[in-house]
C-alpha cells in the first residue's frame, strides 16, 4: 500500500473513534508537554547560568602573557619552558595572529594607568582602565546610567559611581554630558639624535652610557573627555586588574594616547623600539571553546590562564540536571504510551472483522501492520504538535510567574524557560517514535489475525 493511502486510511480510522483517539492524543500531548517543559527549564537555567558567567567576563576569556615575563610565580610552568629567555614576546604580530584564531572574537591589551581627573578646579586621582567595546555585555553595565562608548576610540569616559560622587558629591548624575580633563603620563620615545639612548643621568654621575642603555620619557599630558556614563560595579568584577579602576576609557583611545603603564618598565629592560604588551586578554565566542583557544595560544609559545574548571563543573551539573528533568518529564509520556497500547488493542478487537475483510480482498500481513503503525504514528504526531503548544503555554506561565516573583524581590526579570528550536523537532520525533513503539504489539497482533476466523466473527 502506498504511503498516502496508508496515511489517509489511518486518519480515517482514527476519526471513527474521535473521543477515544482524541483522549489518547491528549494523553500523549500532556506527556510531550511535560517533557518539553522540563527540558526547556533545564535549557533555560543553563543559559541563565552561562549568561551570568559570560556576563562576568571571566569564563570566556584567556589571559596571555609572554614566558619571558612573570617568571618565578609558577615553578611548574617555569619548568615546562626550557629556554624562557627565547620565548616569543607579546607584540603586534602575535596579537594579530591571536585575533585570527578560530572562536576568538577580540584580543585587547590590558591597560591600567594612574591618572587624574580635573573637574571644577579640583584634581581627583584614580586608576584609568581601558575597556573594549565588548565590555558593553558585561553585567556591570546592566545598571549603567547614561550610555556606553559611542566608538572604540571616542573621547569619552565612564566613571565609577563612588568616583563620580567624589567629583560631584551633591548630584553625581549631573556629570553625565559634562566635560572633564584627564591628566596622564604619555610615553614618549627619546629624541632621534640621541639614538634612543638617555643622555643625562650618566653624565651627572661621571659615567657614560653604554650602547646597551635604553629608555623613554614620560611626559604629563591632558585630554578633554566627555562623561557619558556612571556604573556601580567594576566591570569583570575587578578580576582583570590588580588595582581598582575608577575611570574607564575606550581601550583604543588609551592606545592612541600612548599612556605610560607600569609594565613599560619591563619593555625598557627588554630594549628595542617595538611595542610589546605585558598581558593580552583574548575573548572567546563561547566559554566551551576556551580550552581549544588556550591550546592554540599555548602552541604559539605563550603562557595562558583561564577560569575553565568552573565551567566544566557547571556543564557536568547541567548534564545531570537535564537527565533528571528528562526522566521526570518522560514519566507522563510513559503513561501515555500505555494509553496508546490500550487504544490500539481495543481497536484491533473492535475491527477484527474489518481486518479479516481487508485480508480477504488483498491486504498482506504487512499492510495491516503498517496501517496500525500509521495510526499509532499519527496519534504520536498530533500528540507531539499539541504537546509542544501545551508546553509553550506552560513555559510562558513559568516565565511570567518567575518574573512576578523576581519583580517582588526587586530583581530584574529573567527567562528561566527557553524552548530551543531543536527541541520542537526532537519532541515531535520522540513522540512519534514512542507511539510507534507502543504500536508494535497491537500492530503485530492485528497482522497475525486469521482471516477465516475473523470473517466468522460477527
Amino acid at each position, binding site marked *: *500500500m*502506498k504511503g*498516502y*493511502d496508508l496515511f489517509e486510511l489511518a486518519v480515517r480510522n482514527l476519526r471513527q473513534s474521535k473521543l477515544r483517539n482524541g483522549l489518547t492524543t491528549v494523553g500523549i500531548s500532556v506527556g510531550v508537554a511535560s517533557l518539553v517543559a522540563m527540558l526547556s527549564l533545564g535549557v533555560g537555567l543553563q543559559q541563565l547560568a552561562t549568561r551570568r558567567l559570560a556576563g562576568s567576563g571571566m569564563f570566556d576569556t584567556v589571559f596571555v602573557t609572554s614566558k619571558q615575563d612573570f617568571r618565578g610565580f609558577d615553578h611548574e610552568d617555569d619548568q615546562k619552558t626550557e629556554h624562557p629567555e627565547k620565548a616569543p614576546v607579546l607584540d603586534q604580530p602575535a596579537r594579530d595572529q591571536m585575533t585570527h584564531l578560530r572562536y576568538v572574537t577580540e584580543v585587547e591589551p590590558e591597560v591600567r594607568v594612574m591618572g587624574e581627573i580635573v573637574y571644577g578646579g579640583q584634581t581627583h586621582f584614580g586608576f584609568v582602565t581601558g575597556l573594549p567595546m565588548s565590555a558593553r555585555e558585561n553585567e556591570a553595565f546592566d545598571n549603567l546610567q547614561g550610555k556606553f562608548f559611542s566608538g572604540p576610540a571616542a573621547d569619552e569616559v565612564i566613571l565609577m559611581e563612588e568616583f563620580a560622587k567624589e567629583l560631584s558629591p551633591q548630584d553625581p548624575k549631573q556629570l553625565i554630558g559634562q566635560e572633564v580633563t584627564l591628566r596622564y603620563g604619555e610615553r614618549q620615545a627619546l629624541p632621534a639624535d640621541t639614538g634612543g639612548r638617555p643622555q643625562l643621568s650618566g653624565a651627572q654621575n661621571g659615567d657614560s652610557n653604554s650602547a646597551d642603555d635604553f629608555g623613554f620619557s614620560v611626559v604629563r599630558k591632558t585630554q578633554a573627555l566627555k562623561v557619558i556614563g556612571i556604573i556601580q560595579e567594576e566591570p569583570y568584577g575587578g578580576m582583570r586588574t590588580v588595582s581598582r579602576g575608577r575611570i574607564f576609557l575606550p581601550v583604543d583611545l588609551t592606545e592612541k594616547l600612548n599612556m605610560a603603564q607600569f609594565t613599560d618598565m619591563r619593555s625598557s629592560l627588554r630594549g628595542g623600539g617595538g611595542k610589546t604588551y605585558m598581558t593580552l586578554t583574548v575573548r572567546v565566542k563561547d566559554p566551551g571553546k576556551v580550552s581549544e583557544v588556550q591550546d592554540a595560544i599555548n602552541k604559539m609559545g605563550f603562557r595562558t590562564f583561564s577560569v575553565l574548571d568552573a565551567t566544566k563543573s557547571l556543564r557536568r551539573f547541567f548534564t545531570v540536571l537535564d537527565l533528571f528533568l528528562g526522566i521526570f518529564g518522560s514519566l507522563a509520556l510513559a503513561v501515555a504510551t500505555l494509553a496508546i497500547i490500550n487504544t490500539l488493542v481495543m481497536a484491533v478487537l473492535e475491527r477484527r472483522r474489518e481486518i479479516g475483510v481487508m485480508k*480477504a*480482498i488483498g491486504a*498482506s500481513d504487512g*499492510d495491516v501492520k503498517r496501517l496500525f503503525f500509521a495510526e499509532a504514528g499519527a496519534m504520536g504526531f498530533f500528540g507531539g504538535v499539541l504537546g509542544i503548544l501545551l508546553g509553550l503555554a506552560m513555559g510562558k506561565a513559568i516565565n511570567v510567574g518567575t518574573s512576578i516573583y523576581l519583580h517582588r524581590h526587586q530583581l530584574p526579570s529573567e527567562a528561566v524557560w527557553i524552548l530551543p528550536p531543536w527541541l520542537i523537532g526532537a519532541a515531535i520525533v520522540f513522540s512519534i517514535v514512542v507511539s510507534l513503539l507502543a504500536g508494535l504489539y497491537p500492530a503485530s497482533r492485528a497482522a497475525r489475525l486469521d482471516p477465516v476466523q475473523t470473517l466468522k466473527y460477527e
Partner: protein
Amino acid sequence: MALRFAPENVMAASNLLKMTSFPAAEKAPAVQTDDVCRYYPMGGGVIHAVNGISLTVESGEFVALLGQSGSGKSTLLNLLAGLDRPTSGSVLVQGRDLAKMSSEDLARYRRNDVGMVFQAFHLISSMTITENVELPLRFAEVDRTDRAQRVRDSLERVGLGHRLEHRPSELSGGEQQRVSLARALVNRPQLLLADEPTGNLDSRTGEDILNLIRELSLTLGMTVVMVTHERALAERFAQRLIFLGDGKLVSQEVVA
C-alpha cells in the same frame, strides 16, 4: 437434466468434462485440487473439514459447491481463496500451488487473481460504497488517477452507478451484495469465489444477483466457484454441481 457421477469415479468424470463440456475446455484448468485435506485440532480431537478432495474447474466454468452445513464447502472455498492453507495435498490455481506460496504471495494472489463475495457482504460500514470498492485498488497500489474510473465502472456494471456516495447501511441487502460484487470485480480477477451469495437475500433478489454473476462470468470470461445450499438456484445458474459430505467429494452433476 444433470449427468450423475459416482463418487469413486470423480477423476474420470472430471476428464470427461474436460473433453465434452465447456468452451474453455482447451485451456489449462482454472482450479485443480489434488487430494487436498484440511484438518483442525479441536478439544483433543481432530476435525476433518476437508478430507482428500480432488477436483478440477475449467477456465470460464461456473461451478456450484453444494452440501449440508459442516460438509466442508466453505473450508474448500477458503483454501481456493488462499485464506487458509491445506494440511496436505495441493491447490493449483492457474498452475500455481497455493500451498507452497508465502503469505505475501498469497496476499498478492487474493489481490490480483481472485475476487470474493460473502453471504454477510462484509462491507465496511464506516466507508461509502465508493470507498469500499476502492479498497482493493489501494492494496494493489493502483494509481489514484485510475482508481476513480475503475470504481465507477465496477459499480455501474452492477447497476449502482447512481449510489456512489451512499453508505452500506443506506442500501438494501441486494444492493449491498452488488457492492460486494463490484468490490470483488474491481481488480479484474480471473476467479470469482462466492460463499452463499444469496444466503441473506430473498429469493427474487438472490436470483437477480446470480443472474448478474452469470452474466459477468460470460462477459468477462471469469471462472466462478459458488458455495450454496440452494440446489434449485444452483441448477439454474451453474454449469456443474459438486456435492460434498463430511469433507469428501460425494458426487458431481453436469447441468445440461
